């Protein structure tokens, strides 16, 4: 077991810098998720921990060892790959035993460890089969089994669920979470799926174009997104963004067309400053009041059973706005709704930098 520390970690391919300085401290036993859109550098970061990519500059520590120049096998890590990377010519047992064999463990201990891992993952019946004969979910378990038998101090997961169908993905997600809690091994998990990230991670790192957008617990990220990117990325359905100006007293935002919303506290911005206002669909509610509300023209209504999604046009610019209501709401296309949001649920961002304004 070990903590992981990133100290000003950079990665460049030639002149093309792809990771622009990461500082992070992952605590012992913590389950952290690196999340971001494809091409953001999340896998590269994970592979630098694994030793599969060279660290251009900066330092990575696992426990108290500087691992920059250590071979993957010397780092005391195990990794689960997206396509499982099972050795196709070896049986399930041999796949799991291979790393232990190379390490020169006695045969008996290898058998014990594989058997134990197989019991945990319920793949004991398949040990003699070849990977080709297994289903996607079973292969996934074998890949995890191969990681478990090593008893490493760190688990690394590189989008391990993205090759599975939706139903299996949910099931394996729960199993991974349970497994990590039982074993208590420090884990770094990479995914592009924000739901996986939110449900699995104790803490998340949101990465975009090689820059760290925000670090924090899922709740922190949801409640106080540091940037409009994080705000839009975390949460489903996604947050809506509207252009607005700061009102005269600094306690209101004024939208094109004259609608206004009251905000919490007072912003230190001049009246008339342009801002981006973020509103989560689930925080918008219908209101009868004329003041402090927005007028929305309903464009599409989606009934999902448990809730109803309303996609509307707002203001003269017909900006997109999504509203989520509980249960089944009888609303027709073309209708005009009046909605509002509680001041603490109104997020305000700088339209230039995307940074949060408080």
């Amino acid at each position: 077991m070990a903590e992981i520390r990133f100290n000003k970690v950079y990665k460049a391919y030639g002149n093309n810098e792809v990771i622009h300085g990461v500082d992070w401290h992952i605590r012992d036993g913590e389950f952290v998720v690196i999340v971001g859109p494809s091409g953001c550098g999340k896998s590269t970061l994970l592979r630098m921990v694994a030793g599969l990519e060279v660290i251009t500059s900066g330092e990575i520590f696992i426990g108290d060892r500087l691992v920059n120049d250590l071979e993957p096998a010397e780092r005391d890590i195990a990794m689960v790959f997206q396509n499982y990377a099972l050795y196709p010519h070896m049986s399930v047992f041999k796949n799991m035993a291979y790393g232990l064999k190379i390490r020169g463990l006695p045969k008996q201990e290898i058998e014990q460890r594989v058997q134990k891992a197989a019991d945990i993952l319920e793949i004991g019946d398949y040990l003699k089969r070849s990977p080709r004969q297994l289903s996607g979910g079973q292969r996934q378990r074998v890949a995890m089994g191969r990681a478990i038998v090593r008893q490493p101090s760190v688990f690394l997961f590189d989008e391990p669920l993205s090759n599975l169908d939706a139903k299996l993905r949910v099931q394996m997600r729960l199993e991974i979470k349970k497994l990590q809690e039982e074993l208590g091994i420090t884990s770094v998990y990479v995914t592009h799926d924000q739901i996986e990230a939110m449900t699995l991670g104790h803490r998340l790192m949101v990465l975009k174009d090689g820059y760290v957008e925000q670090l924090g617990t899922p709740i922190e990220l949801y409640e106080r997104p540091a940037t409009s990117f994080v705000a839009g990325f975390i949460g489903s359905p996604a947050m809506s963004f509207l252009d607005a100006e700061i009102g005269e007293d600094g306690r209101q935002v004024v939208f094109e067309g004259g609608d206004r919303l009251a905000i919490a506290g007072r912003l230190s911005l001049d009246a008339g400053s342009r801002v981006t206002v973020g509103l989560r669909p689930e925080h918008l509610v219908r209101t009868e009041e004329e003041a402090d509300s927005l007028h929305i023209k309903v464009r599409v209504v989606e009934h999902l059973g448990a809730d109803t999604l309303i996609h509307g046009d707002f203001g003269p610019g017909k900006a997109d706005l999504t509203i989520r209501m509980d249960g089944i709401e009888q609303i027709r296309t073309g209708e005009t709704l009046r909605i509002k949001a509680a001041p603490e649920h109104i997020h305000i961002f700088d339209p230039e930098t995307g940074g949060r304004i408080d």
Partner: protein
Amino acid sequence: MVENRRWLNWLTHFVLIIGVLIVAFPIYIAFVASTHELDALLQSPMPIWPGDSLIKNYAQALGTGARAVGAPVWLMMFNSLVMAVGISVGKIAISMLAAFAIVYFRFPFRMAFFWMIFITLMLPVEVRILPTYKVVADLNMLNSYPGLIIPLIASATATFLFRQVFLAVPDELTEAARIDGAGPIRFFKDILLPLSRTNIAALFVIMFIYGWVQYLWPLLITTDEKFYTMLIGINRMIAVGEGQAEWQIIMATTMLAMLPPVLIVVFMQRLFVKGLVETEK
């Protein structure tokens, strides 16, 4: 095909059977000749049905050989076998290692080596007969197994084939192996070698045939009949000048010379076709 008319089907089979017969005809006659006494063959016309000297002729060929050549065919067969196996194993071994180096390592002059191997495609023995002969003579390798084998084992084709095979091995497997603690040699032995075994087998079939049918090279460097391959032996048996060639023995030897590679093609057809198609890519 779309039409399913009966007469058309019969015609198709008829044409194919004629084709098969034409292809087989020379070999049938050779077989017939190998079962008669020389006297019968010198009749005009020679017999067209097998005779009763099959065992006698083949025994004489294998045991003592033709009078014109002082080596029995079993020895020639052994020499051909050594040459064919030596060439195929040698080609596969050195090509795999070279492809492994080129695909899995980055080092100065990597591409230079790659092109160097590529250029050998354009230098078949036939275009450099004399100087190659001289090199082998200077190295004292005339009339020797290494002399028959080593100059023919460089192979651009096999190197490219293995390069393709290795490139198709997913990167994640290599990464998983590295995390499992496997170094390059171990990875080669435990992962690449078993993953390429059908390619190796297919290539072996093709290269074995290639080695077995070599003619020009052994013709140049073997003057001692102890090192004659079957094909050279046949040539020497025919070239008797004014004397009478022992056609029944020559034809028995010819049948024996065809047997191993033909059996391989027939019984390992799948591997043979795979190898043929892959090496031409």
